[in-house]
């Protein structure tokens, strides 16, 4: 049902008090899965993804009335989701500041026993390789490799130039290749 309406129509419906809840429900139906998987690839753990996803949509609920529509709705949603996920990782890292192992190592080690990871050995190795990348590079790699997103879209979401994104992706691929070969 959510696909009956365009993003513009959904925004207009949301801005009217009588149809706000209905419009928001449709937005959720349309984007919740895409947002979930985007966040999941960044934070890895299902429970953390659930938290970040809820925080993301709460921000959308609070901010949609003031949305200026200078970008697409999904671009705006992706941007909020990415920022929420990266902020979440930053907070987790701070807690691990004086720990022997850092947060990414913890995630990497717990992947194998994670009940919500069904991948094979090679997929596990790929995820561990991705976790060895810096956070922002990881986002770039995930968006390009798994979501097959265009550089122009990524540039709008991440507020980074196309050239920088291409370079970042190229480096990410090289690092992952090296990790897989070494391990």
């Amino acid at each position: 049902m959510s696909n009956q309406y365009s993003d513009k129509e959904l925004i207009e419906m949301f801005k009217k008090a009588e149809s706000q809840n209905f419009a928001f429900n449709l937005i959720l139906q349309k984007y919740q899965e895409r947002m979930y998987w985007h966040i999941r690839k960044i934070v890895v753990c299902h429970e953390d993804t659930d938290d970040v996803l809820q925080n993301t949509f709460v921000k959308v609920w609070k901010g949609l009335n003031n949305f200026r529509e200078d970008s697409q709705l999904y671009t705006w949603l992706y941007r909020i989701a990415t920022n929420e996920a990266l902020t979440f990782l930053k907070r987790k890292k701070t807690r691990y500041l004086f720990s022997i192992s850092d947060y990414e190592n913890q995630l990497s080690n717990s992947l194998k026993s994670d009940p919500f990871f069904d991948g094979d050995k090679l997929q596990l190795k790929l995820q561990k390789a991705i976790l060895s990348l810096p956070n922002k590079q990881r986002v770039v790699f995930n968006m390009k490799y798994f979501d097959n997103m265009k550089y122009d879209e990524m540039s709008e979401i991440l507020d980074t130039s196309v050239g920088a994104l291409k370079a970042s992706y190229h480096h990410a691929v090289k690092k992952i290749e090296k990790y897989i070969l070494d391990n």
Partner: protein
Amino acid sequence: MNENFDIENSLKGLKKETGFSTPDGYFDNLAHKIQARCIEETRVPEKTSLIQILKPQLAFISMITIFGLLTFSVYKLVIPNYSIKENISSIELNIEDFDYIDIEEEIIVDALISESDTSQLKEQEQEEEISDELLHYFIENHADFTTLLEYY
């Protein structure tokens, strides 16, 4: 450079699937859960009085005050007064200086009397000195015999 070709070569054999999964029926209830959370977050809070706003600070101040009073009370009760202690110790020293003897009451009384006698004697001596000086003064200044008699 064909970027996609490079990447396919580099990551050859890897599935384009993450391997991640979700609990059964997770997405079925997700929209409802998120909407309930959004409504909760945007609920207008009830007006709070000044006392309610300052409650944590007031609690903290009272806690500090009570703790301070308790500490002061304990200090006063447990740790003795140093000035009394000093007096006691000096008295103890004085007592130690004396050879301890069984002093009879009579001796104490005699000592007190002799002390008062000596003090009386001293007063008398002082008075006599003054009257001699006066006498010399009157003689030198040719005072009347009657004035002398009055004085003496």
